[in-house]
């Protein structure tokens, strides 16, 4: 089902690459959408403080950069579940990191998809790559954007560091595989 508009909220803790994940999506999107928008939410530059960003992709003009409820929420740090459970539209989905997850979700009108991005990245040698896994899963599930556009953006961003680039692409593809396997909507 090709929709004219996708929006997603990505949330986590500062230092995890939350904003980077959103950036990867929004930088890839002009290849497919007439209008794109990205907005971060943070004040002081601090590791350890919660942060989130919103990405909107649309063929129509985008007016409000802020959405009360989005089509999807990617929760990269399990501690953010409670705060962001209400930010998904009925019928949407939550990609939920399972590492350190203690809370239980209450909503029954959204699909909650568990994601072990941190573990997957850790197996590859570095937890910091979790955001690439999450990115892949989101793209695989939502089909909001063609994976090749994302890969191009990852190459542009990390092109100069060959090892990091290779590692990130691998993690993205793993996430993509996991996401594509999920049947949503």
């Amino acid at each position, binding site marked *: 089902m090709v929709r004219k508009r996708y929006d997603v909220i990505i949330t986590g803790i500062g230092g995890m690459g939350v904003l980077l994940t959103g950036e990867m999506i929004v930088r890839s999107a002009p290849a497919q959408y007439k209008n794109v928008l990205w907005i971060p939410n943070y*004040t002081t530059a601090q590791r350890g403080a919660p942060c989130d960003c919103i990405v909107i992709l649309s063929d129509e003009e985008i007016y*409000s950069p*802020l959405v009360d*409820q989005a089509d999807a929420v990617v929760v990269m740090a399990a501690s953010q579940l409670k705060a962001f459970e209400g930010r998904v539209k009925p019928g949407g989905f939550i990609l939920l990191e399972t590492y350190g997850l203690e809370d239980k979700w209450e909503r029954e009108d959204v699909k909650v998809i568990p994601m072990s991005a941190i573990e997957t990245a850790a197996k590859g040698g570095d937890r910091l790559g979790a955001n690439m896994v999450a990115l892949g899963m989101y793209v695989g599930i939502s089909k909001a954007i063609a994976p090749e556009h994302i890969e191009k953006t990852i190459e542009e961003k990390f092109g100069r560091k060959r090892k990091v680039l290779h590692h990130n692409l691998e993690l993205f593809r793993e996430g993509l595989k996991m996401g594509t396997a999920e049947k949503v909507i």
Partner: protein
Amino acid sequence: MAERLLIDGNEAIARGAIYGDCKYFFGYPITPQNEIPEFMSRELPKIGGVYVQSESEAASVYMVYVGALAGARVMTSTSSPGFSLMQEGISYIAEAEVPAVIVNVMRMGPGIGTGGQHGQTDYRQVTKGGGHGAYHCIVLAPYSSQECFDYMQLAFHLADKYRVLVLVLTDFIIGRMAEVVELRKLGFEPLPEKDWALKGKAFKGGRRRCYVSAAFSYGGVPPRYYQHMAEVYQKIRDTEVRYETYRDEDAVLLLLAYGSSARMAKRAADMARAEGCRVGLFRPVTLWPFPEDALCQAARRVGKVLVVEDSPGELVEDVKFAVQGKVPVHLLGIWGRYTPQGDIMTGGSGIIYPEKILQEIRGLI
């Protein structure tokens, strides 16, 4: 074919300034506009420009003041607390009738506020003149990255054309929101040489410029300064008013908003129309000169106005003044904020979402 880049409002401001032939930036870091000085510190040296990080906003504004006196296209950018510090300098810039551009990326006030989150609580200070002396500055309020880029070029042109200070007013949301911008150089009518500038006699055919004060310049009679400025301000009012109307032709309720609130209000207007409510939007782009006449006409035609601003009520005062009591004016102000997740740590202290504006619209129709 002009280049298209995905950039946020702050970077668009910086790039727009460079496209506006500004090569001199004097500033000081303050959240949420740090992307502007950081960009300038990287890019200006590459084009033979100058970036100076001063010790404070007070110092920056005086550097801008003298740069303007010297006839260069100069600017600074800051946020609300820094803007307050600049008021004396702005008063001096107004007195000397020199052109400059100052960007205020608003944040919540008063005082330290929330340390950098959004807010539209500088409207009155920016439009009514926060410094002493009954002067006016042109105030432009972009609401997208593209407008930030375009209006910076316009700002430098208007500043030079009228020899006034032009303030470009954005906020955290516009500053940090990234959209695709077409990097186009705008064309403007040519302007005369700045023969009044301080450059050294040798560079001006031996003529010298001595500036002490306005009273001194106007033959010791200050009222002549005000008389002259009244003519300048009237010319600006006659020629430079800018605003946008959206779906207002057959509307029964007119939303009134500028800057980031206008983004939310536009979406709310679309949502209302989808429900069958005929709602339109009037968006002032120049906050000074305020589009009084156009607003009054539109408001009287529509019959009811809802002002949406992230403030306890500043824009609404100008709106009430413009409609002269002929039309009911309602306000959805800062109390319209809410945090969807109910958690102040992540959401700051909430936002006026389009959903809330829609709720208010339903109550008024």
